[in-house]
């Protein structure tokens, strides 16, 4: 079925649009295969609103006169559109039939499942070309750039045809002394074939963060020699490594009943296992739903609000993610030991913790480029199933399948770190907000599909533009930069006292007046910093001024002499 066949009514005139904190507007509404377009009717400087249909999470329609005469005078309908970026719009559409048509088109077109029908495959802006490189880096390039890896680590292409692990990229970094054969065995022993691979090597002491999925020890405590050897090779003679298991000890035990399990002390004698409970999947998705619901009802009393905020558990997830990331950093930076992180599947919380730990540890991941590279490496290439996880956001009435806002949780945690270290990150909150939007609905192909393998099969790299590339163009928008950025080499340990963590108002209260005040204040900060740079100059090497002063002094001397004479 062609996309356009879903569109029964493409154009409606005299539609009234209501947005929060804006006066109502009248104009024309258009539905295209991928967009909802609203345009007010003023001739010059007409104002337009363009919404990706994929951004629409839920649509509610209320039609007056539903059972009366069609096209009766004055019959009209209202569509409420709830977007994945948490914006809520209302459209009053004259004519009941049109209203129902529009609603059903939106419903059909916003829930397309086929990747190649999605908008990134049609997005062709004039300033971008498809010939450029897609993505920022590859495993091989990363390895090449990271000299400290060369000695003990190698790039393995054992997964080049994605047969060893369907969700891993074609190349991964593993200990040099472990051959591909052992990797294959280890992969068979790990859920989804996600054998332990290198995630990060610390620039100070060479200790590493590895990640994997759970071992398939099962009820009768199976073991895998190759897996044990692989981990032994990771710590290479040092006496200890830490396994951070993102499940409670009890959950890990229970996992054995379904074929999963954990690394037992007797077979992995040099590894100390620490359990940290993290919620996953549906629970986290429901947290988001509850939180957004709590935020969108302005009539709550303080008590009710706090109780709803607590009940959503969202901040508890933020708290545990940052605590565990802090724990990993503690192991690596202070204790000087390597760490293996995994939960069950190793595609969600594992990535959350490992990437947060890197942000805390590694100054390179705090620049715009570094952060985007981190996301590419640890989320896109590492096989976070974006398509499944971000199919729906907080408003959808659809039955939940695999949705889980783990990536949003990461952005929230990064925001918390920025709150506590406002000078340490080169990027601004605006970049995080942009990512939060793009991950659910995008013109770009970056967040499409669930793994490298799927992206290859769908031809994503050939037929879509890369978000990260476009964000990094030389004219990168100023709003994505942190005006106060001052790089630091130190680890930035966030405080995880509940009092130090806050609701991310920039995201969850994004469409309020409050956000506007914040935006104005932010602009003021920019202008102060700019003025400072203009007056003080960004570099300190130039000594024009001293030349200038010298001249002045000689003048003064001259004057003095003249006076004496």
């Amino acid at each position: 079925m062609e996309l356009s066949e879903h569109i029964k009514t493409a154009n409606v005139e005299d539609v009234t649009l209501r947005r929060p904190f804006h006066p109502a507007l009248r104009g024309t509404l258009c539905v295209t295969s991928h967009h909802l377009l609203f345009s007010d009717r003023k001739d010059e400087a007409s104002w337009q609103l363009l919404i990706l249909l994929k951004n629409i999470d839920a649509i509610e329609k209320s039609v007056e006169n539903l059972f009366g005469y069609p096209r009766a005078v004055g019959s009209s309908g209202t569509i409420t559109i709830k977007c994945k970026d948490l914006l809520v719009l209302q459209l009053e559409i004259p004519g009941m039939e049109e209203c129902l048509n529009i609603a059903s088109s939106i419903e059909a077109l916003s829930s397309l499942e086929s990747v190649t029908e999605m908008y990134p495959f049609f997005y062709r802006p004039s300033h971008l070309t498809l010939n450029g490189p897609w993505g920022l880096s590859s495993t091989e390039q990363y390895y090449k750039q990271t000299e400290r890896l060369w000695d003990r680590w190698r790039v393995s292409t054992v997964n080049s045809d994605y047969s060893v692990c369907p969700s891993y990229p074609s190349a991964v970094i593993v200990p040099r002394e472990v051959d591909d054969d052992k990797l294959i065995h280890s992969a068979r022993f790990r859920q989804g074939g996600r054998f332990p691979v290198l995630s990060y090597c610390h620039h100070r002491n060479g200790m590493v963060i590895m990640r994997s999925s759970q071992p398939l020890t099962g009820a009768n405590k199976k073991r895998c020699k190759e897996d044990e050897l692989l981990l032994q090779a990771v710590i290479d003679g040092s006496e200890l490594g830490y396994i951070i298991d993102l499940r409670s000890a009890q959950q890990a035990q229970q996992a054995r009943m379904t074929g999963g399990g954990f690394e037992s002390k007797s077979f992995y004698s040099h590894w100390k296992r620490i359990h940290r409970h993290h919620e996953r999947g549906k629970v986290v998705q429901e947290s988001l739903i509850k939180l957004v619901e709590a935020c969108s009802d302005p009539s709550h009393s303080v008590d009710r609000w706090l109780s709803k905020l607590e009940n959503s558990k969202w901040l508890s997830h933020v708290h545990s993610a940052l605590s565990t990331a802090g724990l990993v950093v503690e192991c690596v930076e202070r204790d000087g030991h390597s760490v293996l992180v995994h939960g069950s599947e190793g595609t969600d919380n594992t990535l959350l913790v490992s990437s947060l730990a890197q942000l805390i540890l590694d100054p390179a991941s705090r620049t715009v480029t570094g952060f985007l590279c981190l996301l590419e490496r640890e989320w896109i290439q590492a096989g976070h199933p974006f398509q499944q996880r971000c199919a729906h956001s907080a408003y959808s009435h659809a039955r939940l399948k695999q949705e889980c806002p783990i990536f949003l949780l990461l952005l929230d945690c990064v925001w918390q770190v920025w709150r506590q270290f406002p000078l340490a990150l080169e990027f601004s909150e605006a970049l995080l907000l942009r990512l939060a939007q793009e991950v659910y609905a995008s013109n770009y192909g970056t967040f499409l599909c669930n793994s490298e393998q799927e992206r290859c099969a769908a031809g994503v790299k050939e037929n879509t533009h890369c978000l990260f590339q476009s964000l990094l163009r030389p004219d990168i928008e100023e709003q994505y930069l942190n005006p106060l950025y001052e790089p630091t080499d130190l680890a930035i340990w966030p405080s995880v006292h509940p009092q130090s963590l806050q609701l991310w108002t920039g995201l969850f209260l994004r469409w309020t007046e409050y956000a506007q005040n914040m935006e104005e204040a932010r602009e003021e900060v920019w202008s102060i910093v700019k003025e400072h740079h203009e007056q003080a100059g960004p570099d300190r090497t130039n000594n024009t001024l001293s030349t200038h002063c010298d001249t002045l002094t000689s003048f003064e001397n001259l004057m003095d002499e003249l006076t004496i004479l």
Partner: protein
Amino acid sequence: MEHIRTPKVEQVKLLDRFSNKSVIGTLHLTATHLIFVESNSTSAQEIWILHHHIASVEKLSLTTSGCPLLIQCRNFRLVHFVIPRERDCHDIYSSLLRLLRPVSYDELYAFSYNPKQNDQQREEGWQLIDLAAEFERMGVPCDQWQLTDVNREYKVCETYPRDLYVPITASKPIIVGSSRFRSKGRFPVLTYFYQEKKAAVCRCSQPLSGFSARCLEDEHMLQAISKANHNSRYVYVMDTRPKLNALANRAAGKGYENEDNYSNIRFQFVGIENIHVMRGSLQKLLEVVGTRSLSMTDYLVGLENSGWLRHIKAIMDAAIFLAKAVTVEGASVLVHCSDGWDRTAQVCALGSLLMDPYYRTIKGFMVLIEKDWISFGHKFADRCDQLDPDPKEVSPIFTQFLECVWQLTEQFPQAFEFSEWFLIQIHEHVHSCQFGNFLGNSQRQREVLQLKERTYSLWAHLLSEKQNYLNPVYSPSFAESHPVLEPSTQACHFKFWRNMYHQYDRSMHPRQSILKQVLTFKESNRELEGTVQALKTKLQKFGVSTSPLKPQTPPRERSLPPRPQSLILGAPLLSRKEVQQEEDEEVFGEEAREDAPASTDGERTVEGSSATENGYGELTGSFGSKNEPAVVTLEFGVARMTC
């Protein structure tokens, strides 16, 4: 000094409140302060605690490492010492018990504090705030409002100031009659005049109406207030108490205005709880946030159960109601509670702040506090437990007001000239008894104490370090476009004020401060501008034009795009002079690279933080402290600000 038995104890351990960390140091006890000096470390921290700040001292049971002493302060500092010998501990304990309970005003720090100023400077300090000038600024006296001398000798109401403003139609007999019908004689008087609509904010205490009593003079008084405003036919009477409390008061011969007896009033209950509820609420809040390894759930549940933010919102709601009635409807409003010095002060002050941008400046905020809190007799001595403690009288009423203002600064980051450190500093000194402003319960008492002759004014002190309290993103043009603030009262905008209630728990603070950084930038911008000006005048004095110097400027790479050359790029042509100026600035701008490192090096605080304080658990404690980057020190040395 006779109370101090042991002035110095060595080898005292200071335990961190939220982690297992501790430091060893020496404890000194002086007549005014308890001082802890960390030993052996190079950057030895010092903790100075003013005796007046101590709310309670507790001696816990003896442990193997010594005798623990727990000190809780009114500025929310909590220190936990372990003193090796029990005897020393007991000496310190009993000395403190005596020192923190001064028996007469003369013992308060303000009477011994001497900032090395002469009498003239001190007098000037006290003259900074002039309330008569403030009423003049509002446009009072005017054709409807006049100054009355009825309270010149404090005969009508001893908790009111001498100078009071009333409607011109309110004669002395009416005033006196009305005052007899009001609790503590606090009859309706003007506190803020909204010139644009000629609407007045008046304040008083509850009427002694009981179940049926009425007073013609009081009714006349309200009538006079109503008549003074031609914009509105009615006057709002806001009873800031919950209705139930007001009803209960009737049984004691007090109560509220009966709408049948007063013509043209609109009566409204607002429902702010009394001082006892507020005291209990803060106590609960502090208990919750003082818990070690607090979980997010317990934190949020505790925050809810304490009710603290609910009370803050209630005050804010009342102030917004007041501001709306005055600015939108143009109606005059009479505000009262029971005695008219707690909730009434909160609502009047906060309401005025919403209506008048002047009160959002540093000077204006001082005026506001001086007017609605100090002069109208908020009982600082009782509420802040300065002397002769009656625990039932202590209540964080003023703290709540400061917090409401903070909540507003969070919603309107550009509306206030001051930052939260100004509010925190004021809070510190309300309890420090270091300056005379907040001593005593009423103006009359302050006069008896001769505070202006014997103590110094806090306002002069704060203004002298104004730099520290500026809000760098303050925008006067915001005030012009938003003369009246309309805050959102959505519950989610009410946040826990960490920097107040955890101001001394450094591990909880952001490790880097936007505020400080931007302030530094702004300050250095100002200095550079000054330098440019100075050099320019110098050059002019020599009659030298700067243009000959220009060729000496070597071509250079700039990471910022160069200024557009107006001729080439076709930008609007600047006048010759402006071009000249721009060139000058550009040349002098280089100076900063050489001479003004303060903005980047000197002042820079250390980034990073230590792991052990963050409570990730599990591994903590097993690590010795390696060379960890230090935590950022508190913004402006709040920790030592009383010294």
